[in-house]
């Protein structure tokens, strides 16, 4: 057991897989010599050499295209898109090429690749460096999506992503990079599509992802003081989605609140809410409530951004209204 930050967990997770499997390589802008702009890949080039850990030009289409080509030809490449917003720059490669190729070739082509990218707001960077794009990726058939909320899960989900035979987008959250946690020594490997109950409870289920997990946890602590027992679920993986854990919890509590950092329209919570409505409507004791950012780009002003992103206060208020 040792204390580890979320940012160091990224490097540890990648190193664990590179150590194990010589076909794992990593590329991206400033990831090698400089160790990444968020210092998430420090030491990897020194440890694994310039062949396997390599800096690229500012060429997101070339980066993601090269991941695909390399995956077609025997590597398990990891590529970094510095900010998830840059997915838009290479969306053809990601959504048209990488996502569809196994299916369109009748299963001939396997693309075991990982796209890691820094997601989310709260950093005052403004609209083009703050988006939460997990729902956009989730909407494309052929892409798997994970978003760890703590250092341990960064390692476990990174390993699962690298070992998976399909393309996986790993959303690392910028607001969580400094988060610390005691992490077990040795290999950590998760399975994709397993949610965790981080706080058990009986009155309401609060489902959250990435940086919204600590928000939901804080809300649950405050709700406890008001006599409400909230169960907090960290989804961890959107595709595949652990509906069993989720539906089991909601059936017991009878209430569901989703806490989503994405703007309102078509956020992952909309999919979750529709599954609940279709499959366990009669177990509900009240409406499903989605707490999201409004349908706006994120503003850079601290006061406005804090108002936009879901806060513990907003979660508490929504839950109390449901009781």
């Amino acid at each position, binding site marked *: 057991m040792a204390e580890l930050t979320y940012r160091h967990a990224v490097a540890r997770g990648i190193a664990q897989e590179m150590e194990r499997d010589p076909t794992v390589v990593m590329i991206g802008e400033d990831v090698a010599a400089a160790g990444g702009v968020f210092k998430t890949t420090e030491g990897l080039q020194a440890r694994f050499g310039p062949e396997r850990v390599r800096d690229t030009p*500012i060429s997101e289409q070339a980066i993601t295209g090269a991941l695909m080509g390399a995956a077609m030809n025997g590597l398990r490449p990891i590529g970094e898109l510095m900010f998830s917003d840059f997915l838009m720059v290479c969306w053809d490669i990601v959504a048209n090429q990488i996502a569809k190729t196994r299916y369109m070739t009748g299963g001939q082509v396997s693309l075991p690749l990982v796209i890691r990218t820094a997601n989310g707001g709260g950093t005052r960077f403004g609209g083009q460096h703050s988006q939460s794009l997990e729902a956009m990726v989730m909407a494309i058939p052929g892409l798997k999506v994970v978003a760890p909320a703590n250092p341990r899960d960064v390692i476990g989900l990174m390993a699962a992503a690298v070992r998976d035979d399909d393309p996986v987008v790993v959303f690392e959250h910028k607001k969580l990079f400094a988060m610390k946690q005691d992490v077990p020594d040795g290999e950590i490997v998760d399975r994709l599509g397993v949610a965790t109950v981080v706080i058990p409870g009986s009155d309401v289920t609060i489902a959250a992802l990435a940086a919204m997990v600590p928000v939901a946890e804080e809300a649950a602590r405050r709700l406890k003081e008001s006599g409400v027992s909230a169960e907090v679920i960290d989804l961890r993986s959107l595709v595949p989605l652990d509906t069993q854990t989720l539906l089991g919890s909601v059936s017991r509590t009878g209430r569901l609140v989703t806490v989503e950092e994405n703007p309102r329209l078509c956020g992952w919570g909309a999919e979750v809410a529709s599954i609940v409505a279709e499959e366990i409507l009669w177990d509900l004791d009240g409406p499903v409530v989605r707490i999201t950012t*409004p*349908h*706006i780009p994120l*503003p*850079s*002003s601290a006061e406005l951004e804090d108002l936009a992103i879901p806060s513990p206060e907003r979660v508490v208020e929504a839950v109390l209204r449901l009781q």
Partner: protein
Amino acid sequence: MVTVVTTPDLRLTLYRGMVRARYFEQRVYDLFLEGIVKGTTHLGLGQEAVAAGFAAAMHPGDMTFCTYRGHNHTLLRGAPMGALIGEMAGRSIGICGGKGGSMHLTDVPKGAMGSYAIVGAHLPIAAGAAWAAVVRKTGQVAVCFFGDGATNIGAFHEALNFAAIWRLPVVFVCENNLYMEYTPISAVIPVEHPAADRARSYGLPPLIVDGNDADAVHAMATDVIELARRGGGPSLVEAKTYRHKGHSRADPGTYRPQHEVEAWLAYDPLRIYRDRLLEAGIAASTLDQIERESMSEVDDATEQVRNASPPDPATLETDLWADGGSSWRN
């Protein structure tokens, strides 16, 4: 190329532009360390001659497109300093109401058509603005500033080809400060000059200018802007320069060799220009006065920002749509 004769008036304009940009960005840096400017900043300290030279060659209706490292371009097109710092500090007086931040400074009435934070995105956009100028016969020219690293992104190549075949009145200016973030540009291009060596691919002449020499930049700017205005089509200019500070925020820039940094600091565009003006017989007191006036402008702007309120919470959900709101359902 025509060589433009620089008059004393013009030279003082260039000097004033550089001094204002320098003091302004130094203050932004201090305010960032103080926690007043939030998020991030990408300073153009050391690159002021490019901004001053081009701004002085542009006409009032001309359009500037720049990157996150464009505080100086936006200022020198005439945007008010208090509103620029206010934007970086996320205050209500910000030029975008606090919604854009340091990477998105924009002042449309002044022709500062935006700062773009996705590398390369604004090159085709500038071409489009130039196309509109042709269609509407306005005589405007668009000037688009970007870094050396941006020459490696697809949008650069698409925009150059597009502007060249349509002969659009747009000037593409690569501010080659030798680094894309922490990586030396030489490590990620197979040629020596990221922009100039690629110009021929678009049927354009390779143009290189000393980006720390305000006179040289201004002369080049005047030539290419007037060429564009006359219908002679686009140009691609590579201005050789250097940023004095790190890439962004408090980056100490340790990936750059000490001797290289020192050499470029010694070749400071302000210092060399001041010396040149003194040599040309301009009185030191005239230059001192420009410096004093610029400093008091910066101090005033800082005061405005310190006294400014945060944005009204009600503005969070304004201005998504043309009707001023952001609603999407009834």
